[in-house]
């Protein structure tokens, strides 16, 4: 059987996000993210004057960019991208210069003080490779996030992206971000 090409992406229905941060803690446990660091976050936008108010919550993590600037600037090749689009850090090669952090337009990376290396969301590649979904996707009470392979026409994200309007964040960075926010 021919190996099919994959392109992983995440569709986010942020209207459904209730800022419960289950995804943040799930990631912390799954990936041993140190206290004080985060691979994912919930951006908050609070607006208005009493009693006309609104709050928007918007989950964000590494966008696993199509053309990732973090990979481009890395002097050692520690930051790299898999064929399926997942952007990873090879911890053994990382010298901890933090150039990639500065170069990420989405502030998706953090510096692991203890290990002296840079880290970030891996799309839970170790889970995905076993056929599971990422920890943050699985635990979410509102099922805000839908993870899948854009190359797979039967994937739910395919259906969502073909039937709903969406946007990506700051496309002008030229990075080709792969988190799709449903409108």
């Amino acid at each position, binding site marked *: 059987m021919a190996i099919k090409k994959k392109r992983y992406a995440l569709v986010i229905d942020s209207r459904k996000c209730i800022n*419960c941060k289950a995804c943040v803690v799930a990631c912390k446990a799954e990936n041993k993210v140190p206290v004080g660091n985060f691979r994912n976050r919930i951006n908050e936008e609070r607006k208005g*004057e*009493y009693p006309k108010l*609104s709050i928007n919550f918007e989950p964000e993590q590494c966008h696993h960019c199509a053309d990732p600037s973090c990979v481009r600037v890395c002097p050692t090749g520690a930051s790299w991208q898999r064929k399926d689009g997942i952007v990873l850090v090879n911890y*053994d090669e990382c010298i901890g210069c933090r150039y990639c952090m500065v170069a990420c337009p989405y502030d998706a990376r953090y510096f692991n003080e203890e290990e002296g290396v840079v880290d970030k969301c891996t799309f839970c590649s170790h889970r995905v490779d076993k056929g599971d979904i990422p920890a943050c996707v699985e*635990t979410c009470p509102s099922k805000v996030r839908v993870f899948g392979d854009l190359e797979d026409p039967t994937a739910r994200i395919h259906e969502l992206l073909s039937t709903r309007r969406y946007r990506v964040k700051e496309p002008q960075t030229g990075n080709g971000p792969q988190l799709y926010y449903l409108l």
Partner: protein
Amino acid sequence: MGTIRMDRRLFLKSAGATAGAVAATQVGCLRYFKKGRSSAAETKEIPTTCELCPNKCSAIAVVEGGFVKKLNPNPENPKSRDMLCARGNAAIKQVYDPDRIKQPMIRVGARGEGKWKPVSWDEAFDFAAKKLSEVKDKYGPQGTLWSSTEGFQEVFFKNLGLAFGSPNLVRHPTLCLASVNLAYSATFGTVPSFDLLNSKFVIMSGANRFESIITPDTMDLIGGVMERKAKLVYLDPRFTVTAAKADEWYPIKPGSDLAFILAMIHVIIKEGRHSKDFVATYTTGFDQLAEHVKQYTPEWAEKETEIPAADIVRIAREFADAGARALYYAGRRSSWYQNDFQMRRAQAILNAIVGNWDQMGGMVPNAKLPKGEFLFMPWDEPKAPRVDEIETAFPLAAKGDGVYLKLRENVLSGKPYPVKGWMVYKQDPMNSLPDQAKTMKMIDQMDFIGVIDVQMSDMAWYADVVFPESAYLERTDPVEVMPGIWPAVVFRQQVVKPIHDTKPNLEIVQGIAKRLGLSDYFDYTIDQWVEAEFKDLPIPMAAEHMKKHGVWAASGQPSYGKTLNSDHRFVTKTGKIELFSERLQEAGHDPLPVYTAQPQPRNDQFRLILGRVGYFTHANQSNNVWLHEFVKENDLWINPKPAERLGIRDGAYVNVSSSVGSVKLKARVTEEIRPDCVFMLHGFGKKSKMQSLVYNVGASDAVILETAWDKVSGNAAFHETFVKVANA
């Protein structure tokens, strides 16, 4: 922010090209950090049941080398809807918390001074048994108080109290949902569930479902409101997350929800929009109700609630039009005002007249599943009357749960008799009761206090002996049936061995019982207990199934309408749904909800209101490192208008004082609250130094909350406190 629709083929091409080029030069896969991992360690997945709040979600623990690495949601439990919340995920840190109590401890300094002597379990048991016996000798078994909050092992604790001979068991419901339960029971003879997944129109009075997580309601509300576009109307003096997601939010004047509901009933009946067939077939007292609500016009309610009359009329019409699929959601922490019971009852009545009973998208009586029971040796019923005088003061209330605040008053006054020994299980009265100074007085006058907890709570900090219970991931608990629209049976089994010298509650109870000569009543192991419970589960190989799956749920869709036949008898006096209640009348209460305006704060005062965030349970998880990251210190929400008047700046410290106490915390000047209210979060300003992240950080609301209770149920009324706020 730019909104674009990208050409997918285009970016896929470029994605593929760069990805391929980069990846081609790389070999190997992701390597984990070496620390704390050994690749040789085998990974096990053990299903269990989350304990960090009352929801009991099903979880699957991933265990690696004897270490709980991760908790994943277990999709087999329909109630938990395939999720774990932040707290559920952070339960790992409950086990590996450096602040944990690592062995039994006996107090050596003054109470609350924090001088402890680590002791063996034998010493701890001997000490407790000796002290309890001393109290019993002096004051009789009724001289001891056994207070606890729900939990799978609570049964053993309660049984110890009863076997010891004390009538004084007091549980959390009168701090929580007693008035809701009583109001719905008084109307329907049972407390139903709310089918939010299928409802079309939902109204919620301060049930902050998107932060106060209740399964499956929170998830179903997202499914209903956000996916199916059902309508949600939300009333709350605060702009909560639920308010932010609602279609309409009204910052209702606190304490006036009853007026809003009565006016809705008024409109619906006046316009004949109620479900006439349903009312005729299943209810009694409609005529009295119709007569009674004539006075409650929308215009009148507008003045009480500050919600425009036109909106009340419109909402009432929309609600009635949604009929069987309209829901006035009950809420849970009904501990608000002294008229709480009547407010909840008005909701029940409103629900009844639109005919949403036992309907898809309406209120549904809970389905149950059978399980076996372990038969143990029975003891004699305690002879003395209860110290809270529940039989006379609150004849309708649930006897087994007691009435907490009345009980505290009586213990303090020593009437009707002295209570001098206090055993506490899985409860933190220092923080969950109002007026902490009063609770401390109660502590002061005790000859003995023993606390069983998984961490050094403030209550444990003031105890004479602390028994550290193993965390839920370290123990096996009794089997629990979770009734509901989607009922399930859940099992909590040991995931890892206790990492410290802790014991499950049953063994603690047995240790004390043995020294009190009560061993015969506790002559079993947890395994025998759960085996007996497995026996009657209507599934083959029940024990194996439960150990392997952690949950069993009846398959298939919920069945609606089982009670909808004209000869169904509701468990009420008349066998009907009682819009008008003779039982209430006989007990000296209003048979129909009568509105009395609640006192409102003076100009220089604010009403202190309470509520939750999704990251903590009550006051008890603010010391969990993974949750503490989200809120490191609590603050006082105050509207910019009064803040400006008082010269209070965002982030500056303020003194907040009531008639019973005063606290200092930071101000959060925010538009997200009514100008006449202030709000603060629970779980900070801890007195226990073994809550090191929140010890003396922020402030505890229990210090300034005043004592008040609902007249019918005895439920604590937590929102009756007026405070003054001034720059510190």
